[in-house]
């Protein structure tokens, strides 16, 4: 993926996090977005990693969610079972921030297999904590590059449940952040396009979505990254390398 698209997704993801929230961060783009938010409008954001690390303040972008840098700068590192049972299951996580290989019209996420489970075309890493995070977070954010095969009507495998039974589930995904725009879910739990990046048309988004995507009647344009956001991103990206 080209670097400016990756940057735009990280910046939009960062904007959706509010100061003081407790966010459980997955590997990759969610990690980048959350670390960015903490350097911008949400300095009191509490970054939590499924490795058990609470309130990490890493000087560099960590490569993995169990990095020594995360532990060195953390409030504490809990045994994983304590984090999952006593903090996640009990509703103390405000935001679960996830990526994956596919997301469908109801926000179900697939990070397990492409093709059938018994005879996969591509065997992916699997749930990790994603299924649990999708179950118990107060809301979930999803970030994913916008490609037709990544946005099917139904995912090949539901690793992490989205909205179900024609209803929006409170803890389910609130937004999907892509390199083309921003999507949310209506009261029936159906995905809809609410904003696009400058220069991207709704037709282009529909063309790169594998189902008949709803488009909001008040389709907006995502504000361009500010100088401050770009500087914070550059700093993180440089340090990551």
């Amino acid at each position, binding site marked *: 993926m080209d670097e400016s698209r990756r940057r735009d997704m990280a910046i939009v993801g960062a904007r959706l996090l509010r100061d003081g929230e407790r966010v459980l961060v997955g*590997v*990759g783009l969610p990690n980048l977005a959350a670390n960015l938010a903490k350097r911008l409008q949400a300095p009191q954001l509490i970054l939590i990693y*499924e*490795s*058990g*690390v609470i309130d990490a303040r890493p000087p560099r972008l*960590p*490569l*993995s*969610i*169990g*990095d*020594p840098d995360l*532990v*060195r700068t953390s409030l504490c*590192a809990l*045994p*994983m*079972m304590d984090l*999952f*049972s006593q903090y*996640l*299951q009990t509703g103390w996580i405000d935001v679960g921030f996830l990526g994956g290989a596919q997301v469908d019209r109801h926000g179900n996420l697939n990070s*397990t297999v492409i093709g059938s*489970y018994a*005879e*996969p*075309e*591509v*065997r*992916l*890493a*699997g*749930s*990790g*904590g*994603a*299924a*649990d995070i*999708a*179950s*118990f977070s107060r809301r979930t954010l999803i970030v994913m590059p916008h490609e037709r095969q990544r946005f099917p009507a139904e995912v090949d*495998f*539901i*690793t*992490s*449940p989205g909205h179900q039974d024609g209803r929006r589930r409170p803890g389910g995904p609130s937004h999907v952040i892509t390199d083309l725009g921003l999507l949310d879910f209506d009261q029936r739990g159906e995905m809809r396009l609410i904003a696009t990046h400058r220069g991207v048309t709704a037709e282009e988004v529909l063309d790169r979505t594998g189902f008949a995507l709803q488009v909001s009647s008040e389709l907006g344009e995502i504000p361009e990254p500010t100088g401050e956001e770009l500087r914070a991103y550059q700093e993180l990206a440089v340090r990551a390398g």
Partner: protein
Amino acid sequence: MDIVSVREAVRRHVQDGQSLYLAGFTHLIPFSFGHEIIRQELRHLTLCRATPDLVYDQMIAAGVADRVVFSYAGNPGVGLLHCFRRAAEQGLVEIDEYSHFELLGRLQAGAAGLPFWPLLAMDNDLTRQRGRPMLDSPFGPERVAVVEPLRPDVTMVHAHCADEDGNVYSWGLLGDVREAALAADKVLVSVEEILPSGTLRERRDHLLLPGFRVTTISLEPWGAHPSYVQGRYDRDQLFYLEWDRLSRDPLEAAAWLERFVIAVPDRDAYIQLWDPERLLALRRSAGHG
């Protein structure tokens, strides 16, 4: 409790067909034990680990495993595990897959001697295809999902230090280590340092396992490389990236294993193969030496 080499610990306590748990989430991964199992050509093992990581990718590539019990089979922060992926796609290993919370629940039940562990997670395609039983709470209207205990034959752990009585001490990110050790009858431990009897009693907050729960202790500096030991040496991020590249080709993965695992007699010889500057940098960034 015996103080023995890693080679002797594996020779005495690990047999073909057993289920093993090499513990440690990103931190403290007992690579030295994994490599010794490859050298001793053990076969038909069930390899259990929340995060198979590079250690199981290497063991799968070497052909020791029939079955993998896991919850996240990725190269953390980098991508997929290519040897695992090939073996899974070709049906060469059987897989038994969970979410982290479910697998941790299985360990917790195993460690506590309980017949199951309850949790509240929603259903997904994994639980649907595997079948996850539900129980009614005897105390209220709730229904809980339950997972069965995981009781590995042998769990292997790498830790900071132990004393001569086999009491094991560690700190930092403990992940699944304690539960995985206590779920098994036999616990083989490698450590960076062994100290005289009684000298660590003041470190009681860092006690990981009392000596009476430990089967063997092995002195094995750098036993977790390329993972890390907090405050001793940092994670060798470059190797996690290198493995991603070289393991895409089965021949390259085999050549790496031949040179770094099969052709060396032990951990000392393995460490001699690495650039001292690189190792020193890992120590320095960890704040050690």
